C-alpha cells in the first residue's frame, strides 16, 4: 500500500509522481532560477537603493513608456485581432489560407528585421512616413513608432488565441438570440463576446507580456531618445554596457514585479470566470 500525500487522488492510471517531479524541476531550472538570481541580486542592493534607482527620472519615463505603449498596443490589437479572427473563421473567400498563414509572420520574423522594415516604412522619408509628415505627424522616433512596432508583434497572439474558440462557438446560440428578437450587434455583444472573453483576455495578456519584453523590433523605430522614446529593456542594456549592474538590476526587478502583478491579475479574472460558467 502506497501512502499518498493528502492532495493526491489515488488513481489506477499512474503517472502523477513522475510528471509532478519533472514539472517542478523543469520550472525551477528554466524559469525560477534565473528570476531568483535576479531577485537575489536586487535584494543585495537594499530596498532604499533600489527605490532610488528605479525612481530616477530617466528610468521612470522608460518604464512608463514601456508599460503604457505595451498596454495600448495590446488593447488596440483586441478589436482588430478579433475582427480578423472572425473573418478567418466565419467566412470562406479566395486567399483565406494565405491570409491565415501571414498572421504568424510577426512570430517568425527575426525581430530586428521587422524593426528595420517598419523604420523604413515609417521614417520621415519612408513610404508611409512621408505621407504622415504632410499631415504633421511624426511616427518613427516617437512613442507612436514604439506603439506601432508593438501592435505588429502583438497581433498574432490575439488572433491565434481567439480563432479556435470562435470556431467552436455554437451557431445555435446566435440563432437563439435572433429568434428572441436580438439584432446582430446585440447578439455578438451579449452572446458571442462573453464566450470569447477568456480567450481574448489570454490573448491580451500574451500580447502585453510580449510587448513589455520586446526589444529588437522597437529599438530601430523608437530612435531611443532618453525621456521620450527610450524603452525599459533598452535602458537595461545601456546600463549593462556602462557596467551599472545595480541600475540594470533595479529596472529589471521593477519590470518583473509589474509584469507578474499584471499577469496574476488576468489569471485571477479568468479563474473567476471559469468557476462561474462551468468550463468555458
Amino acid at each position, binding site marked *: 500500500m502506497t501512502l499518498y500525500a493528502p492532495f493526491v487522488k489515488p488513481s489506477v492510471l499512474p503517472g502523477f509522481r513522475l510528471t509532478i517531479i519533472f514539472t517542478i524541476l523543469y520550472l525551477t531550472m528554466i524559469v525560477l532560477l534565473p528570476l531568483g538570481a535576479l531577485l537575489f541580486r536586487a535584494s543585495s542592493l537594499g530596498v532604499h537603493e533600489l527605490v532610488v534607482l528605479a525612481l530616477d527620472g530617466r528610468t521612470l519615463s522608460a518604464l512608463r513608456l514601456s508599460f503604457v505603449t505595451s498596454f495600448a498596443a495590446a488593447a488596440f490589437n483586441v478589436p482588430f485581432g478579433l475582427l480578423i479572427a472572425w473573418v478567418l473563421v466565419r467566412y470562406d473567400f479566395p486567399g483565406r489560407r494565405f491570409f491565415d498563414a501571414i498572421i504568424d509572420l510577426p512570430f517568425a520574423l527575426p525581430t530586428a528585421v521587422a524593426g528595420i522594415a517598419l523604420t523604413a516604412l515609417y521614417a520621415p522619408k519612408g513610404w508611409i512616413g512621408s505621407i504622415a509628415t504632410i499631415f504633421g505627424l511624426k511616427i518613427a522616433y516617437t512613442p507612436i513608432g514604439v506603439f506601432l512596432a508593438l501592435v505588429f508583434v502583438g497581433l498574432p497572439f490575439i488572433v491565434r488565441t481567439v480563432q479556435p474558440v470562435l470556431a467552436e462557438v455554437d451557431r445555435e446560440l446566435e*440563432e437563439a438570440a435572433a429568434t428572441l428578437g436580438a439584432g446582430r450587434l446585440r447578439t455578438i455583444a451579449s452572446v458571442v463576446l462573453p464566450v470569447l472573453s477568456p480567450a481574448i483576455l489570454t490573448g491580451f495578456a500574451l500580447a502585453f507580456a510580449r510587448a513589455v519584453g520586446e526589444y529588437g523590433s522597437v529599438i530601430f523605430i523608437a530612435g531611443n531618445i532618453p525621456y521620450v522614446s527610450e524603452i525599459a529593456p533598452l535602458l537595461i542594456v545601456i546600463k549593462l554596457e556602462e557596467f551599472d549592474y545595480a541600475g540594470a538590476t533595479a529596472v529589471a526587478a521593477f519590470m518583473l514585479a509589474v509584469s507578474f502583478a499584471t499577469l496574476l491579475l488576468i489569471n485571477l479574472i479568468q479563474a473567476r470566470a471559469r468557476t462561474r*460558467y462551468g468550463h468555458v
Partner: protein
Amino acid sequence: MELDIRNLTKTFGSTAALHGVDLKVASGELLALLGPSGSGKTTLLRCVAGLEIPSGGQILFGGEDASFKSVQERNIGFVFQHYALFKHLTIADNISYGLRVRPRRTRPTAAAIRNKVEELLALIQLPEYGGRYPSQLSGGQRQRVALARALAVEPRVLLLDEPFGALDAKVRKELRVWLREFHDRTGHTTLFVTHDQEEALDLADRVIVMSNGKIEQEGSPEDIYDRPATPFVFDFIGESVRLDIHVDKGRPFVGQQEVSIPRLPPLLFDGPAKLYVRPEHVAFRRDGEGLWATVVSLHRSGSSRRIGFRADGTEMIIEALTPADREPPRIGDRAALEIRAAGLFSGTA
C-alpha cells in the same frame, strides 16, 4: 395564430430539401412534423422561423405574409434540440433575455420583467432556480428553461426542433406528458419536429409525415397509424411486413392462393403489387378458410409472442403477434392465416 405555408421550396446548392410543401396549421394546434433524417422536416421548421431563406413559396402568419420578414420581426419562439442556453447568464437572465434586448420603447420595466420571469419559472416548475447557471441543471430542466425563454417574448407560434432528442428515454417520456399538459393549458400554436414516431403519435393533435422534402401524409395520429396512405408511411410508421403479390382480375394472390382482405377498395388494375401487413392484424387457426402457411419461427418478447409463417408455395414470411400466454404452435405446424387489415399498392418497387 394560424399558419399557412404555400408551395414552399428550399434548395441547398443543387439538392432540393423541400419540394413545394403546402400546410395549414390551425390556431392552438399541436402539430408534429415526423420523418427520417433528411426528409426536410427541420428545414421546414427553420423556414417558418426565418432561420433559413426559402427558395420559393409563401409563409403566412395569421393571413399576413411573413416570407420576407427577418427572424427578429417574426416573433416566434424556437426551442433547439441542444437547448442553446446562454451559459454565461443565470436562468433568470436567460429567460428574460428576449425582453431585455427590446428597444426602450417596447421594453417592459425591470419590475415587470422580474414578475414575468417568476411566473415562467413557476410554469416550468423550477421556481427556485432563477439564480443558477445552466451548467448546474439537468438536461430535462435545461430544456424546460429553453421553453420558458422562448415563451417569455409571447411568441405567435412555438417551434420545437427535436426538443427531446438529447434526453434519455425516461426523461423524454416524462417531458412529453408534461409538454402535452403544458400545451393544453397555454394553447400556443405549436410545431414540433421529431424522428420518433411514438413521440409524434402520442403527443400531437395532427401528424405530418415527411420524406424527401415532401409531405407523404397528414392526419390525426389514428389516421396515420391505422390508414397509412403510401408505402413509405406503412414502412416508416409502426411495424409491417411487405409481401410481393400479384393481382389477377381484381383479386389479390399470394403465390397461388387468393387472399381475402376486408375493407380494401376495389382493385382496378392487374399485375404485380405490394401488400403491407402489420403483425397485429394477422390471426391464425389450425383449420378452416385462409391463407395456408407453415410456422417457421417463434420469438417471445415481453408480453407478446411473434410467430413467423411461410406462405405455401412462396418464400414470403408473414408475421403474427399473439399474447404470450396463449398456447403457441410448434415449428412446422400448418395454419390458416386471416389478414384482418392491410395496405395494397400497385407496382413492385
